[in-house]
């Protein structure tokens, strides 16, 4: 599956290189997913789409699946262990208790951090000697050495290095229960009533529906039926019908320079 998505070149704060390399670095924990701005990856992809002037459905689907997997992974990393229920699922009193508990815990460590920082400065008054040992003490006689390590440590380490990683598991990703044509119908219905915000189109929808709706919007845009605009990452997306020209406003708006450009088809 070496598609355009895999070769997508990224230039992020924490990483520069192809998308598939980023994926493998994240899986090996060489790059911390918590520090990767997923929005920047989406922007890069949209830039790439704009530059290539082609919407390859297969690669767009693949991108959506991969980015959704990363989002899910990232949100899991940011959440506490499985045992803690979501605040939303708790009764108000329980949610408040949980929040208070977290705030107290943080207050405690913020205070302890202040103490530790002060102690760090105070203790710098004491300096330690760092000088090489006199020549006569440098070499340890081999005869004095006794067994200190267990050789099984070496076998076990080597065994660990023979292990290969399992492939990325996308099994848990739900298969689409919503079809593109359903979402196209919904969007066209909304468009007939004028401009609407993307939020309205996907209110209370599950993640897969949101993803497919984005995809449906791309399709509408491609057919020149709709135009969309987002003024800043995470900002509101406004969708308008019957664009005067197929201007790729949504893509352009997501770009940092926010200069809109026209794409010829």
């Amino acid at each position, binding site marked *: 599956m070496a598609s355009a998505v895999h070769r997508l070149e990224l230039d992020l704060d924490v990483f520069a290189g192809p998308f598939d390399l980023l994926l493998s670095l994240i899986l090996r*924990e060489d790059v*911390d997913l*918590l*520090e990767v701005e997923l929005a920047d990856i989406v922007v890069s992809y949209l830039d790439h789409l704009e530059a290539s002037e082609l919407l390859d459905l297969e690669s767009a689907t693949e991108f959506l699946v991969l980015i959704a997997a990363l989002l899910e992974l990232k949100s899991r*990393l*940011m*959440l*506490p*262990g499985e045992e803690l229920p979501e605040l939303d699922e708790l*009764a*108000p*009193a329980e*949610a*408040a*208790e949980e*929040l*208070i508990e*977290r*705030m*107290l*815990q*943080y*207050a*405690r*460590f*913020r*205070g*302890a*951090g*202040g*103490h*530790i*920082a002060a*102690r*760090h*400065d105070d*203790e*710098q*008054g*004491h*300096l*330690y*000697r*760092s000088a090489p*040992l*006199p020549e006569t*003490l440098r070499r340890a006689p081999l005869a004095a050495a006794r067994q200190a390590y267990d050789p099984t440590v070496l076998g076990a380490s080597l065994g660990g290095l023979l292990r290969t990683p399992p492939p990325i598991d996308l099994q848990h990703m739900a298969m689409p229960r919503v079809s593109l044509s359903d979402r196209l119908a919904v969007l066209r219905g909304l468009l007939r009533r004028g401009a609407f915000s993307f939020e309205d189109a996907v209110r209370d929808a599950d993640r897969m529906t949101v993803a497919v709706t984005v995809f449906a919007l791309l399709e509408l845009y491609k057919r020149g039926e709709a135009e969309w605009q987002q003024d800043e990452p995470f900002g509101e997306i406004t969708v308008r019908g019957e664009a005067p020209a197929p201007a790729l406003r949504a893509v352009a708006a997501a770009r940092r320079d926010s200069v809109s450009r026209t794409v010829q088809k």
Partner: protein
Amino acid sequence: MTGLARLIEALLFLAPEPVPVDELADALQASEEDVTEALGELRHGLGGRGVVLREVGEGFALASHPDAEEAARRLLARPRTPSLTPAQAETLSIVAYLQPVSRPEVARIRGVASESAAAALTDRGLIEESGRSQFGAVLYRTTPLFLKLFGLKSVDDLPDPSAWDPSPEDEAALRDRLLRAGEERAQNAG
């Protein structure tokens, strides 16, 4: 100063790291009691001198007197290490009190990913990885260098962190506010 105290001074002068009492006793072929007593004598004998005896990280070490810091930094061209940033200090305190503690746990307590703070602390040699949790997350612990640089015998020497808890009044006010907000939210939703 007795012969034993003198010899201990010489050994601590040479040793690159703090030396535990049992290792001193082995090297000096003396009992740990005698070594402990001689350490007390050495500490006393160093009163009013340029070096001091310190117990750090479960061992003993000599250090220069703080009065000499300014001249020493001039002579050795060794500037002070920069103060810890608030993010580093919070991350370090979480690791120090809760070790071994996983990366997501630190992020959860601080409310933000704390990777760069943890990386800076690792670079400074104050914390290190100590394996992986059952979910595969990296676990952190403090290093012996942390104890040495912070003048601690062990992490148990750190003050009880409940010292920084908000007062019961503040806590009650906070609880009250949150409860009311929660009830309003439930009413609006229902």
